[in-house]
């Protein structure tokens, strides 16, 4: 892993592809506390409200959170008193068109992927297409998410409740 790994660029990129698939699997399996372990302590998780939005803070967001708020989100999601979890939605993340853009020293990379998220709740099936952009850092030999930005195609429309994307 990381700079010590003599593997080819395509092998190293395949490793990052597997990493984002693994992240998606943890979310679909509702292993949210394990998902938190994939995040760096200074992680930024951002879902903009409009595609042309500037830096977060200048306008409303669907979500903009860091590790502390994400920990609260995970605990709320696992809390049976949470009305949006009665019953818990089931999700399936589909990631395709994965592209890896390596940083100069091999310890960081930007991964982009097309997303199709299906959510099943109360007998209704909803689809949320969009794009995920990850900034990944290699921390002590393990890949971690330093930033995840999700641009949903339907972000400017009226949405109902969304699970952790």
């Amino acid at each position, binding site marked *: 892993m990381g700079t010590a790994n003599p593997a080819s660029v395509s092998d190293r990129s395949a490793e990052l592809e597997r990493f984002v698939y693994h992240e998606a699997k943890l979310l679909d399996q509702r292993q949210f506390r394990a998902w938190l372990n994939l995040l760096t302590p200074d992680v930024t998780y951002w*879902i903009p*409200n*409009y595609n042309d939005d500037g830096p977060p*803070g*200048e*306008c*409303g*967001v*669907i*979500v*903009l959170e860091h590790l*502390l*708020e994400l*920990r*609260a*989100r995970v*605990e*709320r999601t696992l*809390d049976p*008193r*949470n*009305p*949006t979890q*009665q019953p818990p939605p089931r999700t399936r993340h589909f990631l395709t068109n994965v592209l890896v853009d390596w940083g100069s020293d091999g310890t960081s990379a930007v991964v982009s992927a097309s997303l199709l998220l299906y959510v099943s709740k*109360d007998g209704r099936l909803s689809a949320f297409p969009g794009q995920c952009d990850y900034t990944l850092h290699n921390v002590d030999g393990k890949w971690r998410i330093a930033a995840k930005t999700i641009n949903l195609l339907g972000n*400017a*429309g*009226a*949405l*109902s*409740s*969304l699970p*952790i*994307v």
Partner: protein
Amino acid sequence: MAPTSFAELAQADCVHRRVYTDPAVFEAEMQRIYGRTWIFIAHESEVPNPGDFKTDTLVRRPIIIVRGSDGRVRVLANTCPHRGAKVCYTDYGSASRFRCMYHGWTYSTEGRLIGVPQRERFENFNPGADFGLAALPRVESYRGFIFASLSPDGLTLSEHLGAGTGYLDEFCDRAPDGTVQATKPIKYGYAGNWKLQLENYADPYHAAVLHQSALEIGRTILKEKYASAEFTPQSIRTDYYQRGYGSGHGIADFGHGRGGNWMNAYRNPAYFEALRAKYDEERARELLELDVHLMIYPNLLMHSRANHYRVIKPLAVDKTEVWAYPCRLGGAPQDVNDALILNTSHHVSAMGEVQVDDMQAFDWVQSGLQNETMEWVLFKLGGANWREDERGQFQCDSPSEGIIRYQYREWARLMAAGELAAIPGITVGT
């Protein structure tokens, strides 16, 4: 007894399920309420300069809100009088004219027809004012909040708002320069009736139950976040009140300081100093501690603590959108405004902490009311303490469902005329 008229659907402390489920009642509401009274349309800060426009809908009708070259804001039908196509295609923008892309008819920013291709070949056609973009008959604004009416007559906006202007003032007075600027909306939608949102906003009774998870976990975690800012949880006041102002408007007080730490946006010494310099210490504190929900009947909700307003958009008897506009406070420090916008986002968005719970409840109510056995929806909490105060306003202690009953008094007044068609249905218990 089953109601036989619209008026009988809303009793003093309960309303019939058909108020939420009957498409005929919905269509009547759109004519008798949304077609008659003042409807909130937009904020002037969204169209600050001549030529600036915004498009929207007013109960399914596409409209353009545009500031003309004369500086006046008009609300125009976004419909070309030639064949009926829309003439303006983007949410926000600035234009010197509107040109229909179907056949090229062109309109000024005041809505006048100024160009018809091949006009010399038209027969029996003398375009006067009739062929402009139709303007809503009445448009007035109060401190930047633009209202319009589809009806050419009725109360003036000032008469309609009545004492509700006091809280519109407080919303704006928290800005050091006295103005607020609306940002682009955060939108949510639910499969339920529009009045569920209006009632929920007036209802402090549900918060401790429905939002228990959000409040407890949110507070515990954020306590940690604000530990360095000497976070001190405040006691929850018990003397909340609700007030009704006429025309169905009202406020629900959520207790000063409830959100003061939870939503920590106002803790900025420079901001407090600016307000203290403008007013005095007592008034500055009062403005910052205000924590009320203001409801301007039928479609405008204002949130003093998270500093946003919401517009209720009824789409069908069981389909509603709500657009929430976070507002910047003019003259306030950047970090205060940034925090307010984030607070609103995390309050109302599809991944927010609070509104998603309410939307789930709306869904459960709309589904639950499909049972004909559930005839009457109850609003009986806190019924005994209604009183009229010295300012001629109705007031009661809170938590209470009093302000919801008050909304339905206005509903019944506007809906009163006419017979209710019988709905064939199952007969239970015979």
